[in-house]
């Protein structure tokens, strides 16, 4: 099941040229770009691991593609990687754009659990099949 989080997630995965063009757009706007990765795809897992520091003061998308290549070398095919862009013009960093650049080779998706509570209430829990396995063995 294809994870749909962030911008462009209903489109086919972006090519590197398309990712580079998005980064160029971010840099033109003066946004800082950041890479993160995660192997727990639950939608409420919003704090992903950071790949290095956020990148400030870049002039060219090649710099981000360089880090993306390094991140893929370690996590490619075995985790999700996302790229986020932050705008600090208001005096604080706010997220402007965030999209998944890489996803695991297989995405087993989520199971929905129903818990029957008192008074015929139902509590729902979405559980990602991948996260049932220990960290490092998920994908």
């Amino acid at each position: 099941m294809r994870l749909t989080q962030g911008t462009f997630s209903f489109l086919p995965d972006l090519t590197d040229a398309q990712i580079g063009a998005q980064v160029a757009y971010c840099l033109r706007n003066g946004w800082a770009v950041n890479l993160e990765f995660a192997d727990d795809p639950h939608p409420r897992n919003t704090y992903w691991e950071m790949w290095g520091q956020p990148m400030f003061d870049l002039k060219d998308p090649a710099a981000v593609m360089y880090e993306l290549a390094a991140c893929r070398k370690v996590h490619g095919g075995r985790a999700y990687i996302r790229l986020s862009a932050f705008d600090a013009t208001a005096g604080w960093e706010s997220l402007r754009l965030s999209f998944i650049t890489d996803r695991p080779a297989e995405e087993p998706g989520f199971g929905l659990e129903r818990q029957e509570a008192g008074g015929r209430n139902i509590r729902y829990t979405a559980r990602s099949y991948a996260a049932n396995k220990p960290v490092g063995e998920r994908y």
Partner: protein
Amino acid sequence: MPRPAAVDLEAAYQASGVGPVLEQLDRELVGLAPVKGRIREIAALLLVDKLRMDLGLRAQPPTLHMSFTGNPGTGKTTVAARMADILHKLGYIRSNHLVSVTRDDLVGQYIGHTAPKTKEILKKAMGGVLFIDEAYYLYRPENERDYGQEAIEILLQVMESRRDDLVVILAGYADRMDRFFGSNPGFRSRIAHHIDFPDYSAGELMAIGERMLAAQSYRFSPAAREAFARYIVARMQQPHFANARSVRNALDRARLRQAVRLFEGRARDLTAEDLMTIDASEILASRVLGAPAA
């Protein structure tokens, strides 16, 4: 798309906009004839290479990494910034920015500090030119645990694998750079163009000084010009002489003395002429010409 059968070199030259940059280099920088000549050669080579690529004659982009050797103040940093402009106009780099660093910007203080530092600088320079001043300080053979080696390895790797993304210019004294290349053959083999910056003659330094003043709306009085010519000759003999930089520093001090003189005579009105003119006293007050320390 079919390949063109013929290309128009003149049109490509005009379209590149590199001509005005070369003319500006000629006009604004005094002397440096061998440097200007080499830069013209490189520009011609790159322009022709582009046309060859358009005709499908060659697939590999040329190596553009360079080394600038010469004494301090001979214009290496200044020319590197122009080089970024030229490479940008010719379409070899995507933006015309120059990131200028020394060892301390690249090499860390503890284990694990160097790689992120070096990469951060490389990323900032990507798309443009990375200028590494006194590059030989990266290599400290006397200390085998020196973190400089780690920076060197990352640099070499990026210079090779990211040739489309950044141009590296290494700069420093000629003899030390020679030794550095001798012990780091990886750098030598990745550098295509070596440019040597000669020391300026006294006459050239005078012309540079007058240009620096004019750029800030100052000028010498005739007596001051004569005194400054003597100052240059004397300063050239002294230790730590740094060519055009010494001229710049001397003029900064002269401006300071002029301001003090005007301030002390503030009882009378000043004309624009007064505010612009550096007098002989401002030059003669220098220790270089035997004046006692103030």
